[in-house]
């Protein structure tokens, strides 16, 4: 069961009592709330929701043309006033007029408003009077790992022969400024919306990493929090450095406990913290290191300069080492 943690044995009794009435009252969970679909019926139920979300939301998923050398990105129209959620790195400065292409080919203009370089949240507003096709923002804090999500966008720019591109995924991990999903994005997806199975926006596509599991979205909670500054066309913050670097080469552990350190780079963060050749890295920042990809995925969300605890097995003993990772020199 990946969805719930098991409470420690000591409190299980009290806990069970507290929850007992709820358990009795609860029906079988909906297919999309199960840790994994269990039957063809579950798959059909999820499929019906994904199709419905696609139908509801595609018309509001727009392509943004920045003109000049600005390139293009995606965005999504929310509410009745013509606000477009997108990524800060797509829209750039406030006060620019950009072209908005709706999936039916209609072209309208919008003005860029505020952007938060740190979280990558950006906002624009359609000019003129609506109504426009639109969707709703989800409440902050309504997202959990394991949730099924639908990603829409115009990757690579608007293509009149292609509909809004639909992809399905699950939420893998949630951080304050990042939602990570396995809903694979490509360059050019930036600014596009991520929906829950109720068709509400829960995130905006921001960037990708080297693994197919590293798809980063700006949490909708960020937009809720900085909404007033975005509307006021403020531009603030500095892009967060993603990808912290420890400084060692590694190989899989034949016994599957984690990864084995092959060589520690001189003067690296790992060397300073005392990580040695043949150490078996089992945990980083409180997360188990499953294999090589697992280690890369963990480090992709850590930040240079912020200390993490690394658990290693050395000579049969478990050690905890504090490491302050550096920047990726590549």
């Amino acid at each position, binding site marked *: 069961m*990946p969805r*719930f*943690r098991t*409470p*420690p044995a000591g*409190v299980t009794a*009290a*806990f069970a009592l*507290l929850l007992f009435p709820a358990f009795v009252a609860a029906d079988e969970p909906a297919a999309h709330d199960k*840790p*994994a*679909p*269990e*039957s*063809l019926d579950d*798959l059909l139920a*999820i*499929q019906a929701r*994904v*199709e419905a979300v*696609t139908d509801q939301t595609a018309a509001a998923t727009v392509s943004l*043309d920045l*003109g*000049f*050398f600005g390139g293009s990105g995606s965005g999504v129209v929310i509410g009745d006033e013509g606000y477009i959620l997108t990524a800060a790195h797509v829209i750039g400065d406030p006060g620019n007029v950009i072209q908005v292409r709706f999936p039916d080919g209609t072209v309208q203009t919008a003005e860029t408003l505020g952007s938060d370089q740190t979280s990558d949240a950006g906002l624009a507003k359609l000019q003129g009077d609506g109504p426009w096709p639109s969707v709703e923002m989800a409440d902050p*804090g309504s997202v*959990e*790992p*394991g949730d099924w999500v*639908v990603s829409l966008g115009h990757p690579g*720019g608007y293509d*009149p*022969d*292609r*509909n809004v*591109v*639909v*992809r*399905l995924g*699950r*939420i*893998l*991990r*949630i*951080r*304050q*400024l990042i939602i990570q999903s396995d809903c*694979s*994005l*490509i*360059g050019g997806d930036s600014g596009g919306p991520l929906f829950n199975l109720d068709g509400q926006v829960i995130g905006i596509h921001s960037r*990708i990493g*080297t*693994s*197919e*599991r590293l798809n980063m979205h700006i949490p909708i*909670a960020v937009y809720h*929090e900085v909404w007033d500054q975005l509307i006021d066309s403020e531009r603030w913050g500095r892009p967060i450095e993603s990808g912290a670097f420890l400084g060692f080469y590694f190989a899989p552990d034949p016994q599957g406990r984690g990864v084995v350190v092959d060589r520690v780079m001189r003067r690296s963060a790992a060397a300073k913290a005392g990580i040695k050749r043949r150490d078996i890295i089992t945990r980083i920042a409180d*997360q188990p290191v*499953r294999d090589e990809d697992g280690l890369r995925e963990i480090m992709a969300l850590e930040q240079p300069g912020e200390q993490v605890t690394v658990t290693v097995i050395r000579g049969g003993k478990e050690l905890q080492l504090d490491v302050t990772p550096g920047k990726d020199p590549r």
Partner: protein
Amino acid sequence: MSQTRPQIRPAARVAEAKREAGPWRVGVLLAVLTAVLLLLAWAGPASAQRYLDRDYDTDGKEVLKAFSPVVAEARHAVVQLYADGKKSVLGTVVSADGRTLTKASEVREAERLTARLADGRRVDAQLLAEDRLNDLALLQLDADGLTPVEFAEGVLPRLGQWVVVPGLKEVPEAVGVMSAMPRRVNGVRLGIAMGDRRSDGRSVIGDVIPGMGAEAAGLQQGDILVSIADHPVRNSQDVIDSLQDVIVGDVIEVVVERGGEDLSFEVEMRLRPLDRSNRDDRMNSMGNRMSERRDGFASVFQHDATLSPAECGGPLLDLQGRCVGINIARAGRIEAYTLPADVVVSALAELTGEVEVLVNDAGPANDPH
């Protein structure tokens, strides 16, 4: 931000409680507090630190299990092909007597083809005919009594519907959803990098890509685009629009302004080469090789199953287990292209027709008149 996702730190709260209460109450308080805190944790927000186990990913082991009934029958219509002994792509069995379709460009060069069937048999295969546009090859397997796929003729998956990539095993190789309805994918390029000039917005050639038609025709950096295939060009969007109807091999007229003079060039449209030093290609292929032939199809639909290039040539199923098409290319980080069932069925009819003609021409069965 912290308000939207409260971080609960049981240790700190319990320490506070200790200061306020006498030692005899600590046990009770601790139990109650822990229960309440765990309840909050259970309810969601504190799951911020949790990382979904890979087995529960969209195509993780636990999720794939649910798809077993979908592939139960169809996997017997899938074969693993070997080109000169090396594992190659998959094939789709289309007749009980061993006719099989696959991705032509992956098997064309092979001197010897063999196939492994879902029941474990290893048989020889022979290439009978090829459809270059769709990149399909018709093979004859040295086997009988096979289970062909059931083509879902006249049916296309709707956007967001599950699609399933069966292999020879009891669980599928990959699953995903329908991402984009059939369209022509036309990776043909002039072979220029361009930008809009700031002063007047006109499109200027910034770079000429080696090995492409523009270079061969003599276009140069700094040329200002005037028209392409008779479409006037005012900005870079016009360039894209003017190339909508062009297919690979077409030769089109490009007029540029160079040194105040209009010059005309005949440019052959070629498929964009895969370029490891190109950022988009690198980002799109990241960790996965793309199919060599992944472009220039008359009609393909797109899905998001993580199809490896080696899984092309096999069928794609809907939840009913019907074959909605044949996977023909891994085109990007998430883009898998599938020839729709209708396209496959008509291509198969043509390929079969060609084979019959060949057999009749070659064989002694033609009675002299």
